[in-house]
Every structure is written in C-alpha cells, then in structure tokens.
C-alpha cells in the first residue's frame, strides 16, 4: 500500500466512522435497522467518497451522473448519512429522519434533489429499476453507470432473478450489483433460514461477471469495483462479505438487533466502540 493510498484510506475510514455514528444516533432516536446499515457502511463510503460514483452533489439531477440504487431500502439511514457527508444536503438535516416535514422517509422515496434515486422498502425491486436505468442510459447514449446495492436476504425474492436473467440477456455492461452479504436475514442466519449458496455460482449461471470482496475493506472493494467497471458485454456483481452490525461488538453477534437499537449503557458503549475503532 502506498503512503498516498494509506492517507486516502484513513480519510475514508473517518467518513465511515461518521456515517456509523450518524446511523446509530438516527436509529436510536427514531427506530430503523441499524445492523443492516452498519454492514453496508464501507460499501456506501467507497462508492460516494472513494471515487467510484461520478455524481455532482451541487447538481444532483445532472443527466450523466452515475446512479446509485439502494434496493435494501431498510438501510435508508446509512444512505442519508453518506449523502449528507458527500454534500447532497446539510448534515443537520439528518435530525429530521422519519419526521413529518422531512424528505428523509423511514424508507427511501425517490427524490433526486437530495440524491435519492429510487423508492425502496419492499425488497427485491432495485435491480429491475437499475436495469431499466442502465437500458435507458444505453438508449439515450449516456455514459453513466448504474450501481445497485442488494441485501442478501433480499435475494430470496424472485424478482431479483428475473432482473438478473434480463440484464444478462440485454448484455448491459453499465450495471453493477453489489450484494451486502452479511449472512443474516431478519429471523436468523441465511444458511439456516433460506440458503443462498452456492451464491456466486448462481450469478455466474445467470450470465454475470462475479467478483467477491471483503465488504469492510475499502481498498479491496475499490479494486473489485474497478475490475467490474471494465467488464464488457455483461453485467457484474460484487459479492461483498460483510458483518451485520459491523463496528459494535455486541450488535455484530446478535441478529435480534435487526430492527431495534441499543439503549442506555449499551447505546453509550456502541458510541465508544465506533469512536475508537481503527484508532
């Protein structure tokens, strides 16, 4: 690793830390799915702050912008935090999450002005939207790329595989899916509740180029996304191996935190663990 790269990585890690803290505070105050956000923090950070997405926060509707489609809509707080840190809106707006006058709905509602590209919250839908966007880019001769973040449990939905089949059929190469493979769905471990393996083989069989990454290693993620970008003639998926609840020890090991937040002493412990990680 170069010195410049190390510096860069340290800066990204600081952003990731801020996003985790934002998520913790937002969900502790208003509810939500903190652990599903934590597993996706590095993925979101590398996309928005690591030079992957070509977007213009000051010109959010720029027609040639890359599109980021959050299919696992319950990770909305993480999306809002990364958008705020990227400059789409002021960080103070995060305090409006889930309140009546705020555009930061409990699950995302499309609002390009603040960088929210898609409505989600019922799982399985984002890849189809991403495919339509990718085809529209090709038809309209735009150079943009489309990135879709899927949850692993979400891949139980048949629509994901309808979209996977169609994307390969149409040979779209401007479409990259990323799966936040945190190994848990709401009621328990993926392997116990609804097994996905052999997961990479499934995507390959559907005609996709497959990369696997450590979803908390932003250098590895960037490398894999760079590899995906140059693939021709077919869509690509990066299977990002992550930990649900990453960053807070007692949440990592307890999937019952799926739709609840720590309170009291545990909330304070979570803050401190996130603050002191990597330092």
């Amino acid at each position, binding site marked *: 690793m170069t010195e410049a790269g190390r510096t860069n990585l340290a800066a990204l890690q600081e952003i990731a830390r801020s996003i985790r803290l934002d998520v913790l505070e937002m969900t502790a105050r208003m509810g939500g799915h903190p652990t599903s956000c934590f597993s996706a923090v590095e993925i979101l950070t590398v996309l928005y702050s690591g030079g992957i997405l070509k977007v213009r926060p000051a010109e959010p509707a720029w027609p040639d912008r890359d599109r980021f489609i959050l299919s696992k809509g319950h990770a909305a707080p993480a999306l809002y935090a990364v958008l705020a840190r990227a400059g789409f809106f002021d960080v103070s707006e995060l305090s409006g999450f889930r309140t009546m006058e705020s555009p930061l709905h409990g699950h995302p509602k499309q609002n390009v002005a603040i960088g929210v590209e898609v409505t989600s919250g019922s799982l399985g839908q984002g890849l189809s939207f991403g495919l*339509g966007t990718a085809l529209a880019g090709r038809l309209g001769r735009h150079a943009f790329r489309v990135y879709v973040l899927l949850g692993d449990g979400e891949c139980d939905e048949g629509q994901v595989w309808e979209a996977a089949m169609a994307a390969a059929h149409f040979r779209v190469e401007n479409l990259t899916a990323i799966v936040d493979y945190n190994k848990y769905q709401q009621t328990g471990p993926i392997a116990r509740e609804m097994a996905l393996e052999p997961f990479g083989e499934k995507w390959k069989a559907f005609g996709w180029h497959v990369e696997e990454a450590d979803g908390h290693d932003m250098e590895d993620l960037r490398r894999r996304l760079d590899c995906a970008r140059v693939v021709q003639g077919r869509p690509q998926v990066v299977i990002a191996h992550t930990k649900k609840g990453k960053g807070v020890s007692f949440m990592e090991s307890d999937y019952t935190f799926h739709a609840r937040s720590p309170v009291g002493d545990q909330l304070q412990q979570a803050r401190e663990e996130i603050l002191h990680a990597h330092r």
Partner: protein
Amino acid sequence: MRIGEEAELPRGTKQMRDAFAGALVEVARADDRVIALDGDLSSSTGMGLMRNTFPDRFFNIGIAEANLVGVSAGFAACGFIPFVGSLPCFLLPNAYDQLRLQVSIAGLNVKLLGSHAGVSTGREGPTSHAIEDFALVGGLPSFSILVPSDETAMAACVKAAADFVGPVYIRSSRGEFPRIYAEGKCRVRIGKANVVRNGADVTLAACGLMVGVALDAAATLQKEGIQARVLDMLSVKPIDREAVLAAARETGAIVTAEEHLVRGGMGAAVAQVAAEEHPVPMRFIGVQDTHLESGSVEELMARHHFAAPDIVEAALDVVAAKGGR
C-alpha cells in the same frame, strides 16, 4: 343481436388492440422519448407494430411482470415515456407491489396498457378475465385510468396518456367495439366524461364496451318514452365530478354500467360523488361479487346481468324510484 345494433351504431373497423397499436406508433413517431416494454404478449396487445416500426425502442422483458414494471420505472426516471403492454389479469396482480412502490409512490411517468380486459377473453375462463382492474389501479394514488369506448377513443386516449405527465392505466380489449365516435371526433381529457347521448329522464353512465350496450338500452328506453342521457366515463379515475353532478341534478336518476366488479369499480366512484353532493336513486350494472365461467362474452353478459336488458330494467327501476319521469 350484436352490441350497438339496437342503437344503430356502425360496426368497428378494427380491433381495439390494432387501434392501440396504430396510436402508439403515432405518438412514438412524434416523441422519441416514447418506448414500448412488453411482457411477451406483443402479438396479443398490438405492441408488435411498435416492435416492427421502432425496434430499438421496443424491449420484450419476458414473462416477468415484476421485473417489467421495475424496468419501466428505471426508464421513466431517466426521462423516457414507457408504455408497458400486458394483460391486466397478469400484470396487475403480479406486479402490484412494483406498481405501488416504483410507480405510484414515486409518481413516475409510466403508462400501462391492459389489453383483453373485462370478459373479452371469454372462453379462456376466469383466470383470464380482468374484472378487478379498476379496483386495483384505483388503489394506487397518482394513477389515472382511461377506458376507451371505441377505436377513435382509443387513439385519443393513447395520445392523452402520452401527453399527460404521470402514471396512466389504459384499459383495452381484444375485439372490435361498435363506433361511438366519428373518426377523429373523440375528445379525451383526463378527469372528463363525454356526453354521447342527451336525455333528461335518467342517466346511463358507462365505460368501455358498455357504452355501446348503454346506447342500445337508451334506444329501447326511448320506445317506452324515456329519454336517457348516456355518459361515456372515459376517465374512470379521476372521475368527472361535474358530469356526475349535472346528471344527478338534471336527470335525477343514475344507472352505471361497467364490465367490472360493481365493488370498487366506476359505479362506486360515481356513487361517491352523488352521495356527497346530490344523492339520487342509483343502480349498478356490472359483475357481482363472483368469478365467472368460461363462455362467450354474450353468454357471460346475459348470465351475470350486465347486458342491455339489465340496464333497461335498472333504468325503469330508478325512474320509478324518483317518482317517474
């Protein structure tokens, strides 16, 4: 007796799906944002003409309605005007979640064509009938519902849908409908009905194929000395409040007629308007709370009491209920 014969309506010159096909190609020629997305039914819906005319702007998404609607939303978000073609019996139940999230909540500019609606699939049986499409699409805020009553109305509806910014469902059918309008003489405005027959004794508010049936009923009623106004409820959602209230005030009695369940259909929307501002005696002609058999359109209409004689009987009933003409 064929539909429209009693009222001496001219026969249709083409199938409704062919009227749709021609109109879609016309709007696509005028606006290169218009594209067609097919659920592998282009040979049934009429979208095949788009495939042949503008192959680059036609995509068969396959037999996968959820993905079909999701893809349409992606196109719409990039400024295209996608027309999604399928049969409502497949499209709406399969992709309701996607229509709700990706199109209705997002308010995206997607147009749906539901061909072979109502009981036009007759002998294909109850799985292929679409008698709940108004109720389903009606449950999606931001959607408009247009129901052309003949080939001229179809062309105008396609144009109106393309011009309107927002999601629109167009109900279509397989066969020919009798001519209600002269060529090029149908005005379609979202939220507006058309008066296709004047009368002051009772109003028959109908949509789609049932407009021709209602005109037959009106011709029969005339022989009994009753002048029926016939409204073509082209815009089932939003409903034309003004036309409904004028009908209630000026004729004092309303019969609605639709090739749809009476619950959650066009008649219910008409009744809501009347109930709120000017209640009058009403009857509702359509399919009761049941699924139908495999049979011809005529057999199904007769068995389930949504044919012209049923409208006549209902009209006589409401005229009596309001105290005579």
